[in-house]
């Protein structure tokens, strides 16, 4: 990841944090504000990070996946449904229910990804159309089932009123969490921590293992990989499914970690922003993560400004209007894509159908 991009990311995050500190420093210490922002940033960047990693696995293997949004939405719904089911019908305690939910979400993501893989790789459907199909399918199924099961006369839950087991608890990380002052930043919920770990793991896998070498080969020059005996189709399928499972984990964040209920279309474009993060990060794990943090910081800014509402001097009052700040991630994404901030180079065979 080149220095110019890194510098710009640091600058943007610095500006956002600086704004909050300037506004709120009369009421709270700067350190408290910064750590609070950082903690929020890491938390809300979780689905973006996981979505970006999901896209990374797919695209490094040569398959464009714009269905991440749908995968996350579907996973959010089915994971949530599973956790409620376990809690309500089987009377499981909260943690096991939630964990079942997470597993279900991951599997759901994997299944949607399998569909995308079958469409794009075996049936050679245009990959963007395939991704769009996933998105529409996920929106339709989750909307339908949501209304059917929860507003239609729920015979699904054995006559009982469905109740959610809540959200995953924060975990205290041993060494990092004990740092005075900054320790709060690392007090995160499991999926957020998993996302951080997965960034490192992905970097290692992609650049230091045999699997990573072969995956990248398949995404750059599938014919070359084929001639040395690598099964291009199998590599692509497996990477897409792994991507789907990561997207599924990202979806679990929405309904099992962030809030404990489901809203139709609740992913709200996060899957697409994750793709932009991946592109901006030049298809590398750390780059994508950094970009995800920028978007996360923008969202954290929006959240914190609401709390600081009464402190905002009149000239800055327009910031109160959450629409203005809410626009920031989207405008930022577009600016990033213009390439003003450095050229990005996708894997050479990204998006191309492989035929012998």
């Amino acid at each position, binding site marked *: 990841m080149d220095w110019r991009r890194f510098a710009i990311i640091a600058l943007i995050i610095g500006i956002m944090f600086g704004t909050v500190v300037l506004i709120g420093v009369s009421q709270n210490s700067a350190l408290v504000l910064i750590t609070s922002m950082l903690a929020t940033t890491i938390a809300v960047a979780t689905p973006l990070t996981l979505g970006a990693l999901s896209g990374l696995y797919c695209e490094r293997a040569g398959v464009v996946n714009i269905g991440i949004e749908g995968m996350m939405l579907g996973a959010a719904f089915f994971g949530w449904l599973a956790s409620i089911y376990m809690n309500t019908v089987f009377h499981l305690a909260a943690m096991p229910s939630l964990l079942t939910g997470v597993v279900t979400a991951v599997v759901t993501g994997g299944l949607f990804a399998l569909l995308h893989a079958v469409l794009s790789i075996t049936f050679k*459907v*245009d990959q*963007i159309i395939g991704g769009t199909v996933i998105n529409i399918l996920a929106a339709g199924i989750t909307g339908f089932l949501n209304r059917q099961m929860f507003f239609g006369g729920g015979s699904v839950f054995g006559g009982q009123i469905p109740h959610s087991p809540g959200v995953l608890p924060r975990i205290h990380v041993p060494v990092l969490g004990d740092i005075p002052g900054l320790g709060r930043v690392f007090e995160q919920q499991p999926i957020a921590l998993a996302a951080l770990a997965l960034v490192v793991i992905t970097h290692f896998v992609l650049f230091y293992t045999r699997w990573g070498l072969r995956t990248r080969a398949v995404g750059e020059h599938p014919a070359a990989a084929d001639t040395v005996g690598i099964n291009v189709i199998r590599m692509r399928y497996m990477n897409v499914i792994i991507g789907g499972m990561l997207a599924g984990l990202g979806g679990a964040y929405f309904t099992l970690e962030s809030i404990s209920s489901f809203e139709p279309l609740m992913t709200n474009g996060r899957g697409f922003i994750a793709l932009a993060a991946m*592109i901006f990060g030049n298809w590398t794990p750390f780059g994508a993560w950094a970009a995800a943090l920028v978007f996360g910081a923008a969202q954290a800014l929006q959240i914190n400004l609401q709390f600081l509402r009464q402190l905002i001097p009149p000239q800055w009052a327009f910031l109160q209007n959450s629409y203005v700040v809410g*626009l920031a991630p*989207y405008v930022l994404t*577009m600016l990033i894509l213009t390439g003003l901030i450095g050229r990005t180079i996708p894997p050479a065979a990204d998006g191309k159908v492989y035929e012998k």
Partner: protein
Amino acid sequence: MQSADQQGFLRNLTRRLDPLIVPLLAILTAVVIGGLIIWAVGGDPIAAYRGLVQGAFGSDRALSETAVWATPYIFAGLAVAVAFKGGLFNIGAEGQLAFGAVMAALIGYALPDWLHTPIPAYIHIPLAIGLGVLAGAAWAAIPGALKAYTGGHEVINTIMMNYIALNLTSFLLNGPMKDPNPLNVVARTPSIAESARIPPIFVDLRVHWGFVLALLVAAFMWWLLWKTTVGFEIRTVGANPDAAKYAGINVKRTIVISMALSGALAGLAGAIEVTGLNYRHELGFSVGYGFDAIAIALLGRTNPFGVILAAILFGAMRNGATRMQFLTQIPIDIISVIQALILLFVAADAIVRYIYRIRAREERVVLTRGWGG
């Protein structure tokens, strides 16, 4: 034994019908699977579909409502189809439509006040529609220009513009453009003036002349794409931008024109809804049109006349669904699932061909050329 003549005739007939076969079978398969889903959650598929058909075609009023639903679908489907022909994927029809609707509404309710004089309908209506068209065109031209001049992929940029449009219209409809009527709590504009309303075709039915306009515009698009130099340029850039460049076509300018044209059609969809049906714009009214438009464009094989048929189908389904839900308590969302399945089978027509053993045709829509940049 059939004579050579008869065999030739049949072969000719099947060749002409071939473009229709896959979409029809795709619809059939999706309907069957939808029926299975309905049955799986405890409903009666036959009753559900009967309700659907009744609701869509069963009376004058039903037909009128189907046409009402189909009208914006035709425009939006054309929007996506035109973009496809130009090699572009316009997922932003949603935002372009919303922006067009808002602007049309603005002219509709505010212009007489600004000018302090009533305006005759034959000026007011075209103005309102015209601004809606321009708004949609501009909204799409931005990602178009970004694609042409910076290589930024239009898929993400149009999606971003959708969310920006959503936020923008939220802001406008909750703020400066909100209906000042004290009884109103919803985010919506005031009603537009009488002079800005497109008259209905029949006295007591909702179907309005916008539907006829939609059919005319579709025909015009067909003419534009296949019978003019502009259309030739759009299609050539879509088919092979390198050869288009050698042919002397200004590829960048054509990309922007294609997107602007696409956005104009989407804006027209929004404007017509405002001036012909709702007589105002309300938040949340247009959600989902964008993705439906993609399905309609693909189902209609990106051909304007196919789009008309596909739009009528989707309009019929949406319309009939309310009656279906009323009669059988099956949620109307099942329609979304069926539509997604139709799209699935049309896009992956290989699946349908495999199931029904049909030989393959040539054309394949190729849009993904990686992220460029």
